[in-house]
């Protein structure tokens, strides 16, 4: 036990001695949490829309006014011909071009039906899909308005049956993205920091040749590993605490569930990540290799965690892969506990999986760690 304490002491001293490194360890995650949480939003707004109006009638003006009045759209200057419209789209000066044909109003009056040509930049398919829904919702409203104008009837005379949909958004009724993203980004930052540092730490001793010196001391394998990894475990929990405070104070993230549970889960989760880092450093020779492997897994963990893109939309096989992704469980867990107030009972599956992973990976890492080369 005393040996472990000495190693831990040495490791802490090493971390605290390098002031520029220490600054980075704290500043980078905090800064990123503060800044990036604001940027991570899928809200589709500020949609730029351009009209080519060859009709110039009451009906076409009703249509344009409806878009003008809607806060999701910002109408650009009016274009004169389809060629200009295409050019605008190619330059990226607009997102949607709507072409109103010149018999638009006549067609509506005579045949009760008219066509609108709509072009949407669909490179980002999901955004284009949402934009399309917004456009069609407005066009539906316009239908009704124009009917009133053309037939000179009052609204009461056209009694259409209406099915109203009343949305109600639970747990987050203003659809605030930050409460959704902040806990997730915090999870990423804690994971990245501890994984990168732990993966680099032991391989560094290898690269500099100091590992051999330690190997010939009476220090036991487990003492060395615990001594090496414990400081990062503490560091992870400190960053988590700072992050939670920022979430509460700056972003006003609701914390409905038990904070104790969050700490309990994180403690086990960090063991898993540190074990993984140790495993990486066992199987690499240089810090560069270790970082590259850590980078590879980290990108996969991040993009397949369900934090940015929904897991349900992935194909089945990919959904099965996410079952091996520790970040997925942590993101799910922290959202359930903080935002929905889930208790131990609801998050037990996540906890059990993480615990099993932690035991497996640490077993593997300790087993593959050799004192002799």
């Amino acid at each position, binding site marked *: 036990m005393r040996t472990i304490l000495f190693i831990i002491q040495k490791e802490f001293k090493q971390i605290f001695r390098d002031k*520029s490194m220490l600054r*980075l360890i704290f500043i980078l*995650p905090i800064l990123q949490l503060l*800044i*990036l949480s*604001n*940027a991570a*939003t*899928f809200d*589709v*707004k*500020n949609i730029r829309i351009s009209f080519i109006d060859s009709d110039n009638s009451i009906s076409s003006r009703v249509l344009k006014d409806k878009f003008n009045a809607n806060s999701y759209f910002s109408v650009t200057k009016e274009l004169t011909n389809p060629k200009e419209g295409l050019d605008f*789209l*190619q330059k990226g000066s607009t*997102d949607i071009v709507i072409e109103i044909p010149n018999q638009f109003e006549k067609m509506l009056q005579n045949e009760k*039906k*008219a*066509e*609108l040509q*709509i072009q949407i*930049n*669909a490179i*980002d*398919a*999901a955004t*284009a899909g949402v934009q399309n*829904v*917004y*456009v069609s*919702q407005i066009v539906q409203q316009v239908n009704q308005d124009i009917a009133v104008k053309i037939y000179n009837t009052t609204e009461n005379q*056209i*009694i*259409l*049956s209406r099915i109203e*949909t009343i*949305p*109600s*958004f*639970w747990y*987050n009724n203003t659809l605030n*993205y930050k409460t*959704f993203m902040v806990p997730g980004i915090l999870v990423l930052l804690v994971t990245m920091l501890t994984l*990168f540092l732990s993966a*680099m730490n032991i391989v560094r001793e290898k690269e500099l040749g100091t590992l051999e010196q330690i190997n010939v001391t009476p220090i036991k394998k487990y003492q060395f590993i615990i001594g090496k990894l414990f400081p990062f475990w503490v560091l992870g929990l400190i960053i988590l605490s700072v992050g939670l405070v920022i979430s509460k104070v700056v972003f006003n993230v609701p914390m409905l569930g038990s904070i104790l549970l969050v700490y309990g889960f994180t403690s086990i989760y960090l063991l898993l990540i540190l074990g993984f880092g140790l495993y990486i450093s066992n199987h690499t020779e*240089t*810090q*560069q*290799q270790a970082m*590259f*492997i850590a980078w590879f897994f980290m*990108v996969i963990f991040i993009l*397949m965690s369900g934090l*940015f*893109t929904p897991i*349900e*939309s*992935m194909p089945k096989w*990919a959904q099965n892969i996410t079952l091996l992704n520790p970040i997925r469980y942590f993101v799910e867990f922290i959202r359930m506990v903080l935002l*929905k107030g889930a208790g131990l009972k*609801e998050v037990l599956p996540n906890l059990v999986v993480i615990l099993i992973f932690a035991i497996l990976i640490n077993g593997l890492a300790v087993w593959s760690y050799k004192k002799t080369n």
Partner: protein
Amino acid sequence: MKRFKGFVKKEFYHIFRDKRSLFILFGMPIAQILLFGFAITNEINNVDIAILDYAKDAESEKIIQKIKASKYFNIENQIDNEKAIESEFKNGKIKAVLLFERDFAKKLENQKKATVQVITDATEPNVANTITNYTQSIIQNYQNQKNTTQEQSVSIVMQTRMLYNAELKSVFNFVPGVMTVILMLVSAMMTSISITREKELGTMEVLLVSPLKPFQVIIGKVFPYVFLSIINAVVIVLMGYFIFGMPIRGSLFLLAFESILFIITALSLGILISTVSNSQQTAMMLSLMGLMLPVIILSGFIFPISSMPLPMQIMSNIIPAKWFIIIVKSIMLKGVGISYIIKETLILTLMTLIFIGLSIKNYKTRLE
């Protein structure tokens, strides 16, 4: 020059000798493109929802059928009271509940008005919002169908064309993004770590007292990574083209030129990082911890930049990846020529010059 050649050769040997790193360097981008190209989509479909039907009449049944028929929703189960919603949400089994009020059909008939509540679990605002939008448009369509029999109604028919991506494949958005993330991080991380490695191991001193000029040392170290990154870029574009059906509508030559420009931008950022860090750990913190999330989040790779708050939109301008993503999408999907992307190209060039300038200023040829 001969000396320099020899040095570059040595650097190549260093990299190619290390089979494992080489395997990682080439294998991993391929694995990532494959995985993400097939798996990642920010479309929302197959959402599990539940129905709470107090009406149980013909109208509600018809709407439920419509919902069932759409690819967006899976009707997971029927629940029979509002209390059950809470526990279903907490388990995370369903994302939304459609609630039909009592006497739905009767109200629609007599009062011409009936309501459906769409209750969503908005912890994921994006999913909640999209579900609400989709349900609304399904129900609206249903309502319009009912109303077309009415005398005094008109209808504007939308002829919508999805430009550049008619089938709405999200892979068209992700391939340029993944390519950028890979090139950016690999180039910046590998160079910064490999240069600081020489510093940390003390071999930099040996190189500095050699007859090679300092800039030759740096270029010699960076050169193999230019080469490797170009190969990576080619592999990614080929995979995008052959596996995911990404079109290359613009000039291949232009695409190659812009990719090389971006690789150089990323490498010079790597050099800059190496001049300000004295250990590989610091270099890693700056290049990996410091760049990874900003490149993923602020570049427009996943989150549309136009939706961000204004300060974030301004901040995204300093991310080189943002400009490269615009360039790649413009060339590959829109098929435009250089005149449409001249601004982006100039910005990347300027950034490269700034990185190189700062590196020269910070570069120390003497020992402390």
